């Protein structure tokens, strides 16, 4: 029996994704005026899809196993289209929306990981105090 029961690992992977996403958004916004620059994106959903298909014999089709996740980093993809005359493909509105989304996602993961540590702390102290 694992003390941390895989939850912390899953949350960590979520945080990994979110941190890389933040870096990619920062880079896209930094290159908003660079001619020929193509916007980058982080794909996490495809990795998640793979995990869902790989998990064997779930008790329920909605269950999937994240404990055996490989430690491959989230894939960074390049969106090939451009939206401006100079070949630049950074959509500022999309980047700002992604930024807000990513921030909330990151904060919620932090909140959960903190809650998990809180529960463990409570167990260690025997529920007292």
């Amino acid at each position: 029996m694992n003390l941390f029961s895989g939850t912390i690992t899953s949350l960590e992977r979520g945080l990994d994704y979110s941190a890389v996403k933040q870096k990619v958004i920062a880079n896209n916004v930094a290159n908003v005026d660079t001619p020929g620059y193509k916007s980058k994106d982080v794909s996490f959903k495809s990795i998640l899809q793979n995990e869902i298909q790989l998990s064997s014999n779930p008790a329920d089709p909605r269950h999937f196993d994240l404990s055996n996740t490989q430690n491959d980093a989230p894939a960074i993809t390049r969106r090939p289209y451009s939206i401006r005359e100079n070949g630049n493909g950074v959509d500022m509105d999309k980047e700002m929306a992604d930024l807000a989304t990513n921030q909330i996602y990151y904060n919620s993961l932090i909140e959960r990981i903190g809650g998990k540590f809180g529960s463990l702390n409570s167990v260690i102290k025997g529920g007292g105090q």
Partner: protein
Amino acid sequence: MTMFHSMNTTTSALTAQRLRMDVISSNMANVDTTRATFENGEWQPYKRKSVVLKPQGEHFSSFLHTAMYKPSNAGQGVTVSRIIEDNETPGELLYDPEHPDANAEGYVEMPNVDPLREMVDLMSATRSYEGNVTVFNANKSMMMQALQIGRS
């Protein structure tokens, strides 16, 4: 890909946009300068300058590194590769025979700086700067949140 990677990325963009604003300031300041360079025995008017931006870390060695060690290549921001002078657009000819730089017909060549264009560029640079400041603040608040892990 260190802890402060995205902050460095954003900072590089702030630096680049600030330099762009400096160049625009220079253009606006020299909107009437007729003696910028001395070439072939006569004074040439100021030429409009502009910056050329390019992504940082998009060179061969970084791609090789990505291929060999497979770290995720999120990019390292933006840099000003050079400042170019606009020698194509002709400057406006102003009739002023009294002017010391007037030619034989009495016309003075003015700099090819268009104040309207400079103002539009300035607004664009300001908005890009603000966008990067927003990203920086978002990143900062996320890092502050991360510091709260494990606090009861």
